[in-house]
């Protein structure tokens, strides 16, 4: 099986307690990774994971008209490039799930 490396930052790194991990994830989409693979591996954190990165309605992940889950203002990069949730992962891909930034140097 192909390996995909997944990196977590900030709030997500703290939530899962790891900076990165690998998945056997040949041909699955980014949506599959975020909706199934990650929460299945981190079952004790799965509810908080879902609520953190996805829009939810009555504890269910909100689904858009095109059938995809709706991310909050998180960004998914694969090999440094912004991808859609429909992106199919390939062997050796590096997935990074980025919380929103907003460092606050210019607060009023």
């Amino acid at each position, binding site marked *: 099986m192909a390996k995909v490396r997944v*990196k977590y*930052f*900030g*709030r997500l*790194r*703290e939530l899962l307690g790891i900076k990165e991990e690998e998945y056997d994830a040949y041909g699955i989409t980014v949506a599959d990774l975020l909706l199934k693979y990650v929460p299945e591996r981190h079952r004790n954190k799965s509810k908080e994971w879902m609520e953190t990165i996805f829009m939810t309605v009555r504890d269910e992940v909100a689904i858009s008209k095109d059938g995809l889950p709706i991310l909050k*203002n998180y*960004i998914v*990069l694969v090999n*440094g*490039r*912004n991808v859609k949730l429909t992106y199919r992962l390939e062997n050796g891909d590096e997935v*990074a799930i*980025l*919380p*929103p*930034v*907003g*460092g*606050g*140097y*210019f*607060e009023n």
Partner: protein
Amino acid sequence: MEMKWRFSHQLEEDILKIKIANNLSNLNELIDEIKKTSDEIGAITIFIGVVRGKSRGGEKVLRLEYEAYEKVAVKSLENIISDLKSKYGILDAIVEHKTSSAEVGENVVYAIVASKHREEGFKSLIELIERLKHEVPIWKKEVTEKGSYWIENIQEEKKK
């Protein structure tokens, strides 16, 4: 605030200096370094980001903790500086950003812009810092007396 990620732009020059690390360089040495890059420089404009001792909510801050997706952050800053060169005609820029833990009063960001004249220097510096804040994957956690908070953006700051 929408974040933008652009990687398609190929840099024409490689004279940019960007550092994301636990320790910042000596500021005077950075100024000397950028001065050497061109005899056309007539202004050096500098921003120093400092850890403030009070949070937005007025709580006493104990320290900040920074975390970066370093390789993407560097690429993102390269693109920003390249844009500023095209837009304002600045001569060069240096950006350094601290990672890991930072105490109150500590310098955490140096942004140095070298330009022919002050006007484009000031404009570029403001835009550089604004884009650094919104586009570059560096996250900040504020540790206060009452708790710790990831500062993700002004609208959605959440209590951990």
